[in-house]
């Protein structure tokens, strides 16, 4: 199986811990409305790193990539429709 090696894993781990450090540091300062946006952008970036490298999605093709995205796509549909309902009441 072709996949990333220990060097890539170490680099991703270092990036994840650095991003956690940034989130914790940012939570101590008042960024106004950008605080939540920053915290969630960093979380999304961390999740993408985990999915692409630890879960090997960067190296997967075809049917497996479709199956892996299916859950997230349907969650997007669920969130979109729920928000359309609540925010237009």
């Amino acid at each position: 199986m072709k996949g990333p090696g220990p060097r890539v894993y170490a680099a991703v781990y270092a990036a994840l811990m650095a991003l956690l450090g940034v989130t914790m540091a940012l939570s101590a300062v008042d960024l106004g409305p950008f605080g939540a946006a920053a915290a969630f952008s960093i979380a999304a970036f961390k999740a993408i790193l985990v999915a692409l490298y630890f879960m090997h999605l960067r190296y997967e093709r075809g049917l497996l990539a479709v199956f892996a995205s299916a859950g997230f796509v349907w969650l997007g549909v669920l969130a979109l429709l729920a928000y359309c309902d609540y925010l237009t009441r």
Partner: protein
Amino acid sequence: MPEEAIFEDALERRQAAALGMWTFLATEVLLFGALFVAYALNYHLHADAFREAARRLEHLLAGANTAVLLSSSWTMAMAVHSAAAGRRRSLLAYLAATMLLGAAFLGVKAIEYRTEYEHGLFPGRFTWQGPAPARLFFNFYYALTGLHAAHVSAGLAALAWLWLSAFRARLDPRSVAAVENTGLYWHLVDMVWIFLYPMLYLMGRAP
């Protein structure tokens, strides 16, 4: 029917296993995702009360726990790598490290729950005189972190089983696939926590 007759080669076997696992993970994404969406909508309806309630949580402990769980994902990735390379001793070591980190995460979570119990923030013993929707926030908090902790516990059981079977016998393609699938599960549970951390603990801090 022997497995050799079903699968053309090792790659096909591995892809079939991963495909099944991702199908299960999609249901997990929707299980947690539905709760995330419900939380987000209620947050918008009661933003001030939710923020005030979120400030009662132990955000520094949660930050430390995030580091513990991210570390466990790294050791899990290394365990999968060791299994695929056929290195049994390093597989056993990385599996043990992942289990230790997972158990440490649950330990810190237990300390948090105890602190909340002492502060009167526990269901059935809720004495905090905060704004009314704060109780709703804490219901979400216990449901989300409780469901997540249950997933960590299930992951620990799977890891213990992998460790024992790798300890007892040589690695065959089937056990390598089992390590890979447990890895996928463990990383997804980590991913859920990556979002729970800002959602629950940091919202009260970022105005």
